[in-house]
């Protein structure tokens, strides 16, 4: 009966959704009312500076911590009380995996694999070989990069419909990072896996993400397609004389020593830049993702 109900899940249910998530650690707000929903098959890159709240947001969305307020849902179920069916469809890799250090890589994968109905043992075998990880070595004795790769194998071998990766490339060398990104892109493209991954490496985002969400000081500042971000946002520079006419809504605002002003502005609904962009001396500079990130985060 349970299975029948699950099969009847509406196709457009967001695999991962957060509404008004708020959380704080030791009195300081880490999340301030975050709303975020992933569409099935999308690859969302969550970007933000260290301490912006990315890991906390991911953990709250997956029910790994109880937020102060707000609600998170996974495949339509409350994240804090997920059914086995929902859990079998998702995989998560934390930032620095440290779990089950007393097992060997092979033992850990065998152990975890017993719980997943669609466990791909062949994938485990071939990927361990391909990534040159000694299966009989204790996890505690692996390097951080190897450990992260073993955890990625664990996540991918369960053939998830939703893959959540918290800074997956942090401990990986460039070759391993490329391989991981290729694997993520492949899963998203061929199997329709929904992917959420956090990073502060902008080039990773450009390589695989279809959308980006920018988290800053616990707030989601922008959420859009990767290409759209490059076209929709720009830096508006206004000379000192024209700075009083600066548009009020802007993602960032920085005044220079000479009195001139730099702002990150967005096109309006009619695809126009703010009026101030047409003032004498004003300049609109296109921004790459990295520049956009730096402009907002600084």
């Amino acid at each position: 009966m349970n299975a029948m109900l699950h099969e009847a899940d509406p196709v457009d249910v967001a695999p991962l959704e957060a509404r008004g998530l708020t959380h704080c650690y030791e009195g300081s707000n880490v999340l301030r009312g975050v709303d975020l929903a992933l569409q099935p098959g999308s690859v969302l890159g969550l970007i933000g500076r260290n301490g912006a709240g990315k890991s906390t947001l991911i953990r709250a969305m997956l029910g790994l911590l109880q937020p102060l307020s707000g609600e998170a849902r996974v495949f339509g179920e409350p994240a804090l009380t997920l059914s086995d069916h929902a859990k079998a469809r998702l995989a998560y890799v934390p930032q620095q995996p440290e779990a089950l250090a007393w097992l060997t890589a092979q033992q850990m994968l065998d152990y975890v694999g017993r719980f997943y109905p669609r466990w791909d043992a062949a994938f485990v075998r071939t990927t361990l070989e391909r990534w040159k990880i000694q299966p009989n070595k204790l996890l505690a004795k692996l390097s951080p990069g190897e450990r992260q790769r073993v955890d990625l194998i664990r996540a991918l071998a369960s053939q998830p419909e939703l893959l959540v990766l918290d800074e997956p490339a942090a401990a990986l060398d460039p070759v391993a990072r490329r391989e991981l990104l290729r694997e993520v892109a492949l899963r998203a493209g061929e199997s329709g896996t929904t992917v959420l991954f956090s990073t502060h490496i902008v080039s990773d985002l450009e390589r695989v993400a279809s959308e980006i969400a920018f988290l800053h000081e616990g707030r989601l500042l922008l959420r859009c397609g990767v290409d759209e971000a490059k076209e929709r946002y720009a830096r508006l520079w206004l000379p000192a004389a024209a700075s009083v006419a600066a548009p009020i809504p802007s993602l960032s605002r920085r005044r220079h020593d000479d009195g001139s002003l730099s702002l990150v502005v967005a096109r309006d609904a009619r695809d126009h830049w703010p009026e101030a962009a047409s003032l004498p001396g004003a300049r609109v500079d296109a921004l790459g993702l990295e520049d956009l990130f730096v402009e907002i985060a600084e």
Partner: protein
Amino acid sequence: MTIRQLLMLPWMAWSQRMRRIIAWTLLVTLCLATAGYVLLRRSAGTGADPAHAMAVIDCLFWAAVVPRALVLAGEARRLRLPALERAAATSTVLYAVLTIALPAAVVAMLGGSGVVALAELALGAGIGMGYASLPPWLGVWACLAPVLDDHMGEWLPMPASDPVGFLRWAAPVATVLWIAIALCWRRAARCDDDTSSWLKPLALRWRALSAQGRNGVKLEAELLRRRKSWKQPDVDLRRTGPGHLVRGLRVALGGWGVPQTATSRLRQAGLVLLNVLFALAVLATLRHVSHDQPDAIAYTVVLSMFISAPAIAFALGLFGAVLGPVRADALRARWSRDNAELAVLALLPGVGDTARAKRALLKASLLPTLAMQAVLLALMLGVALWTRLPAGNDALLLLAQGGGMLVTVALSVAALSGTAWHRGWQSVLTIAAIVLMVTTTAAALFRFDDNLLAQRLAISPIFFALWAALLATLLIIVWRGWRAFWRQPHPFLPHG
């Protein structure tokens, strides 16, 4: 560097808090050791020998404090700070001047033999320093120094009886000892961070472990990383999975509750047995050394306590008493990390609904410890029957081990539920519980002046009041923890 900075150098390898604790512990130990030494010498009618007393103090000081300079020297070398490395060596020399040369000079000025005092002090400090900075299999023999100190007079000339004869053997021994220490220092300060090396001194091994801080899980990971493969337990993954959830969770909880293969269990038991045999061999050596000595009776009493049936039962009781707090501490550490087992367990399918997961978790975390404590209790009661202890004493054993099991439940449930209570109070309660359990077990098993202390303890109102207070506190903790545990949305939420 100023002299004050040089003197502070070994202390700087500790945190300020640790520094205060070590300093006070050392001060109290030194005062007690000095007072005890003077009293013993007076009661033996030999009079207090200041150089000898200072040598004992030097031994303790050089074992505990000065080797920290070695730690600092090693780290300075790795950080490419040659000035600090030189300062660490200078600091050691300065301490040698202040604790060896200066007291010897004072003895000489007071009319004693400065050279004999110098040899005596150098030997004392060398034994202390050797304990921490020689390879452990050599340094550990420094623990026998007090026994040797008491009985060497039978075989070798000593300063009080034959100063010239003493110098003849002590001066070369002290010289060789210090050369060995210098060589080991040089090697240890220059070696990489490979603690598995059998030459690595104890001071550096402690440093490697204490660097992991108070986080039990980090320390566990570090120990796993450093342990030789043949010492690692082989986890038995048979009968784990959704169909055998409790056993599966035991694998994920780690520690000694992990299911192991039979070979692995045998190997682990063999390692414990080897350690016990080593301890017995050391005790036998002590007995041999103290044979026919005037104060041999003290050693005989100590030895009989170690090898008698009640002593074995007491050891089992002691093990049972510390088992619960140790296991609960491991759980608390596990539940304080958010990127490890909890994340895996929280998202693991096949665990079932929240209630099933909670029940399985309680069983997996409590049952191995409680089963072990039950086995220990059964063994203790077996010994009690064999030694024909009165029924009242059996009841005391039951009370002590039953209390231990309640401690296991209370602390574990508090750890799993994240019931907030001050860590300091938790430590006070744990220590108080262990002391009470151990005292009760000792009272039930041992005789003093041919009388069982139990009879006196059992009627003591203070004894009953202490037990009543402990049991009441534990029950409150269980009740609070139990309610909080079942209120959680799922049992794998970290508690920071």
